[in-house]
C-alpha cells in the first residue's frame, strides 16, 4: 500500500503533464482530482493501522543492491502515520486554493504533485539513502514554486531557501555515508542504509556526537531552530499561498520528524547529552518567534514567525525526553500543520482580493467579511491554544512533559502561549475590528462557496482532535515510548514516571 501511496501523486503529475495545450481548462480540475487518491490511500492506511503496535507496519522491503545495502524500504509507525495523513490532506486543500495561479499552470501543478511525492517519501522511507533522496528532492519543486509563482522578492527568497536547506542537507548526507559504512561493517557489506539495521551499530560516544551534529544541523535548519530560521520568513512570505501552506504545514515537520526518527533513535547517548542544549534552543525559539511575531507589519510574516514559536514547542517536547513530551511534540506538529495551514490559506484568500499583506492596509474588515473574520478568529484561537481546539492538547502535553525534567524551561515556555495571544489577537484587532479605515477595503466581498469548502474541513478537524485527541495519541505514544525505551536501555538516563497516557480531559 505504501508504494502506491507514494506513487499516486507522481502518476497524477504525469497525467497533468499530458494534458494538451488547448485543453488547459482541464488542468485545475484534473490537478485537484489526482490529489484525492493519495488522501484516500492515507486514510485507508490510518484505518488499518494496528493500534498499540509500536513497530513499523505495512513494511515494503525490496533490496536494490546487496553490496551497497540500498533498498526500496518503506514502513509507517505512530510517528509518521499522522504526518502522512496531514500531508495527503493539505495538498488537495492547497491545490483548491490555487486558482489565482494563471501563469504556467501546468508546471505549477506538476511541481506541487512532485512535492507531495517527495514529502510522503520522507515520512515513509526506512532506508536512509531513500529518505535523503526524498528529503533533498523536495527542494526543487519548492524552489520553483517560490521562485516562479512567488511575490516581488521571490528570486532572493527562493535562492536563500535552496542554499540554507541545501547547506543543511549536505551535512546530513555526510553523516549518512559515515553511518552507512559503519553499518556495512556489521553485515560484511560495503555499506547499508537500512535504518532498522543501523540500530544494531555500536557507536562510540564521540561518533554519536559528531553524527548527531551532522544530522541535527540539517533538521535544525528545516524545523527551523533559532538561529537557523532566517530563511523561513522570507520563503513563507514570498511563496504563493499553496506553497506557504505546504511549507508551514508539512515541510517544517521534516525537521521534527528527522530529530525523532534519526537523531533520538540512532544516537541515544548524544541525545541525552545534548537534550538540554536543544531544549534551551527550543525555548529560545518559542519566545523569540513570538516576540518577533508581535511587531511584524506583514500578516504572512506574523504567521511565519508564529511557526518558529510553535516549532519551538516541538523541539522542547522532543528533548524533554518524557513520554508526554514526545507525544505532545508529535501532536503539536500535526496541530500546527492544520492550524497554520489554515491561517496561510486564509491570508492567501485576503491577498487574492487586495494584493497586499500589510496589516496597516486593512482595518475593520470584519464588517464586510464576517464569515472570513469568524474563520480567522477561530484559527487564531486554535493557534493560541484555546482549550477544546487542537493547539491546546499538544502544547499542554509538551509543557507537562517538559515540566517533569526541565521545570524552569517549561515555565518560560508557558509564556509563549501568552505571547501567542498577544500577537494573534492584536493582529486580529488591527485587521478586523473597528471601523473601516481604508476605503479600498469597503468593496471586499466575503468568502465564496469554494473558499468556505476549503476551510471548513480544517475547522472540523481542529475541533474534533481538540475535544477527542485519544485516537491520535493512542497511535503516537507506543512508537515514541519505543524510542525512550531504547534511550533507557543504552544510557543511564531514566524516564520519569508520571501517569501512563495523557488524559483526553484536555477538552
Amino acid at each position, binding site marked *: 500500500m505504501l508504494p502506491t501511496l507514494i506513487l499516486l501523486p507522481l502518476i497524477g503529475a504525469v497525467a497533468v503533464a499530458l494534458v494538451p495545450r488547448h485543453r488547459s481548462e482541464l488542468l485545475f480540475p484534473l490537478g485537484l482530482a489526482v490529489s484525492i487518491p493519495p488522501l484516500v490511500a492515507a486514510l485507508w492506511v490510518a484505518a488499518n493501522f494496528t493500534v498499540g503496535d509500536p513497530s513499523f507496519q505495512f513494511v515494503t522491503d525490496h533490496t*536494490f543492491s546487496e553490496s551497497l545495502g540500498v533498498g526500496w524500504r518503506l514502513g509507517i509507525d505512530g510517528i509518521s502515520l499522522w504526518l502522512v495523513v496531514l500531508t495527503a490532506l493539505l495538498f488537495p486543500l492547497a491545490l483548491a486554493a490555487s486558482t489565482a495561479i494563471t501563469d*504556467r499552470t501546468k508546471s505549477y501543478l506538476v511541481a506541487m504533485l512532485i512535492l507531495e511525492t517527495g514529502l510522503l517519501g520522507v515520512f515513509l522511507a526506512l532506508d536512509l539513502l531513500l529518505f535523503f533522496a526524498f528529503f533533498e*528532492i523536495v527542494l526543487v519543486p519548492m524552489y*520553483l514554486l517560490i521562485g516562479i509563482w512567488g511575490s516581488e522578492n*521571490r528570486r532572493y527568497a527562493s*535562492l536563500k531557501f535552496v*542554499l540554507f536547506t541545501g547547506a543543511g542537507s549536505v551535512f546530513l548526507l*555526510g553523516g549518512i*555515508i559515515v553511518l552507512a559504512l559503519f553499518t556495512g561493517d556489521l553485515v560484511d557489506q*560495503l555499506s547499508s542504509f537500512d535504518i532498522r539495521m543501523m540500530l544494531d551499530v555500536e557507536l562510540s560516544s564521540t561518533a554519536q556526537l559528531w553524527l548527531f551534529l551532522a544530522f541535527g544541523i540539517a533538521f535544525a535548519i528545516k524545523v527551523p531552530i533559532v538561529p537557523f530560521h532566517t530563511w523561513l520568513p522570507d520563503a513563507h512570505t514570498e511563496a504563493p499561498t499553496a506553497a506557504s501552506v505546504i511549507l508551514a504545514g508539512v515541510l517544517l515537520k521534516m525537521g521534527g520528524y528527522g530529530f525523532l526518527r534519526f537523531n533520538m533513535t540512532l544516537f541515544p547517548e548524544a541525545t541525552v547529552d545534548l537534550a538540554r542544549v536543544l531544549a534551551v534552543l527550543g525555548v529560545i525559539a518559542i519566545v523569540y518567534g513570538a516576540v518577533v511575531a508581535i511587531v511584524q507589519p506583514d500578516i504572512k510574516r506574523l504567521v511565519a514567525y508564529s511557526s518558529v514559536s510553535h516549532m519551538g514547542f516541538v523541539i522542547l517536547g522532543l528533548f524533554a525526553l518524557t513520554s508526554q513530551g514526545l507525544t505532545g511534540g508529535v501532536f503539536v506538529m500535526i496541530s500546527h500543520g492544520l492550524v497554520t495551514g489554515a491561517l496561510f490559506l486564509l491570508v492567501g484568500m485576503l491577498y487574492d482580493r487586495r494584493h497586499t499583506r500589510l496589516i496597516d492596509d486593512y482595518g475593520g474588515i470584519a464588517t464586510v467579511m464576517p464569515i472570513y473574520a469568524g474563520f480567522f478568529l477561530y484559527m487564531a484561537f486554535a493557534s493560541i491554544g484555546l482549550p477544546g481546539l487542537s493547539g491546546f492538547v499538544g502544547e499542554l502535553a509538551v509543557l507537562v512533559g517538559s515540566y517533569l525534567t526541565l521545570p524552569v524551561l517549561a515555565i518560560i515556555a508557558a509564556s509563549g502561549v501568552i505571547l501567542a495571544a498577544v500577537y494573534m489577537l492584536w493582529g486580529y484587532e488591527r485587521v478586523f475590528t473597528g471601523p473601516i479605515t481604508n476605503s479600498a477595503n469597503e468593496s471586499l466581498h466575503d468568502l465564496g462557496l469554494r473558499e468556505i469548502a476549503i476551510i471548513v474541513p480544517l475547522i472540523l478537524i481542529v475541533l474534533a482532535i481538540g475535544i477527542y485527541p485519544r485516537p491520535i495519541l493512542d497511535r503516537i505514544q507506543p512508537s515514541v515510548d519505543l524510542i525512550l525505551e531504547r534511550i533507557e536501555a543504552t544510557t543511564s538516563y531514566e524516564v520519569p514516571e508520571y501517569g501512563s497516557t495523557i488524559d483526553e480531559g484536555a477538552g
Partner: protein
Amino acid sequence: MNNAALLPIAPEVILLAGALIVILLLVLLERPYREGGIVALAALAAAAIASVLQWQALEDGADNLYFSAQGVPVPRLPMVVMDHYSAFAGVVIFIVAMLGLAVAWRLVLTLGARGAEFLTLVLLAVAGLHMMTASANMIMLFIGLETASIALYVLAGFTRERANADEAAVKYFLLGSLASVIFVYGAALLFAATGSTAFYGAGSMRQFLAENIVAEPAILLLAMGLVIVGMSFKVTAAPFHQWAPDVYQGAPSGIVGLMAAGVKIAGFAALGRILFSALPSQIDDWAPALAIIAGVSMIIGTVLAAVQDDVKRILAYSGVAHAGYILMAFLAGSDGIGSMWFYVTTYALTVIAVFAVVAVVSGSRSGSSPLADWSGLSSRAPVLAWAMLIMLLALAGIPFTTGFVAKIGVFTAATDAGYLWLMILALMTTIVGLYVYFRLAAVMFLEDPAGVEDVVVPPTTALVLTVAAVTTVLLGLLPWPLLDLAREALPL
C-alpha cells in the same frame, strides 16, 4: 595472425577506416558533408558494437587479450590490451561521440567542404581517446594522447574567422603540448625507475614494483608526480585547469561538449589505467597527491564557477570541480573503479547535453555564451529549459538524477578509504555548487525574456537532449544496471 588477434584494436581500425572514407568522399563528391556525417556516425556505431563484442568475448573467456607486433597469445611486450576496462571505455566514448556529433551537426552543415575535414578530425580524436584507455604500454598511451590532442587542437580553432577561436586553439595547443611534455618526461622517468614501459607481462612496471623494493624512490615519486600532473592538465584538475575556461569559451559551442566530455572520459580512464594497472603497489604514494589535487579542484572549481558571467566559463569551472569529485574515486584503489566509471559516464552525458543547449542558445559557431542570452529561456523554449534544468540538477547532485548516485559513489569510496576530510570538503563545495547551478536555473526560469529572440532547437539536438534527459532521470532512479556493469569494468 588470425581474426581474433585483431579484436583488441578493432575499434581503432574501424574508426581510421571511417576517417579515410570521409576523406575519400571529399574527392568523390562535391558537397560531401551529409554523406560524410553518415559515414562518421556509422563508423562510431560500428566501433561501439566492436567494443560490445569485445566485452562479449571477454565474458566467453577469450584468451587473446593483447595486441602486439610480436604475435600472440601473450607477447613479451604488449601494446594494446583488451579487458573489461577498455571495452567499457569504448562503449562509453563511442556513444558519447555519436551524441556529440549529433550536436555538432548544424555546425558541420555550415562548414561546407571543410565539414569533411571536421568529421575526419573527430574520428581521429575519438580513436586516440580510446587508444589511451586500451593501451598496455606507456608509449601506446602517449601515442593515443597525442593523436587525440592534436586533432582536438585543430577542432578548437575550427571557426578560424573568429579571432578568439584562434586564440583558444593556440592556447589549447601550447598548454596541451606542455602537458604532453610533462607527461612524457614522467613516462621516461618511470622507465628509468622500473626498466619498463609496459603495464603487463614479464618485466613490466607492475611486476618490477611488485617484486622489488625501490631503495631510492625519488625518481619513482618524481615520475609518478609528472605523469599525474600531465593527466591532470587533460582532465582539467586544478591547479592545472587554467586553459579550460578560455578554450571552452573560444571554441565553437557545437563541438565543446564532445571535447570536454571525451577528454574527461579518456583522461580519467587513462589515469586509472596507469595507476591501477602499472602502479597499484604504490597507492600509498599517489593517493595522497590525488587527494590534494581533488580538494584543490573542488574548491577552485566551485568558487570560481560562482563568479562567472558566461555559461561556458561556468561550465568549464564546474568541470574542474567535477574532476575533483571524480578523483575521489581513485583513492579507494580498485574498489573505486566502479564509482569512477559511473561518475565519468553520466557526467560525460550531462556535459554533452549541457553544451548542446549552449549551442542552441548562443549559436553553434559562436564562442561566448553570456548569461543574458539565457534570461527567461523557460518562456522562450520551455522544453529546452526543462532539459537544461534536469542537467543542472544532475550537476548539482540532486537526488533522482545520475549526479546524485555518482556523488554518493565517490563520496563513499573516499570515506571508506579513510579520506573523511576530503568528503567533508566535497560536501562544503557542494553547497557552493548549489548556488552555481540554481543561479543559472534562476536566470532561465525567473527572469523575463526581455529583448532576446526566440530560439530554434534543431532536431538532432532535440534527440540528444531527450536521450540525455531520460537517461539522467532513469539512471538516477534505477542506477543498478549501469552500476553493475561499471563494477565489472576492471582492468587486468
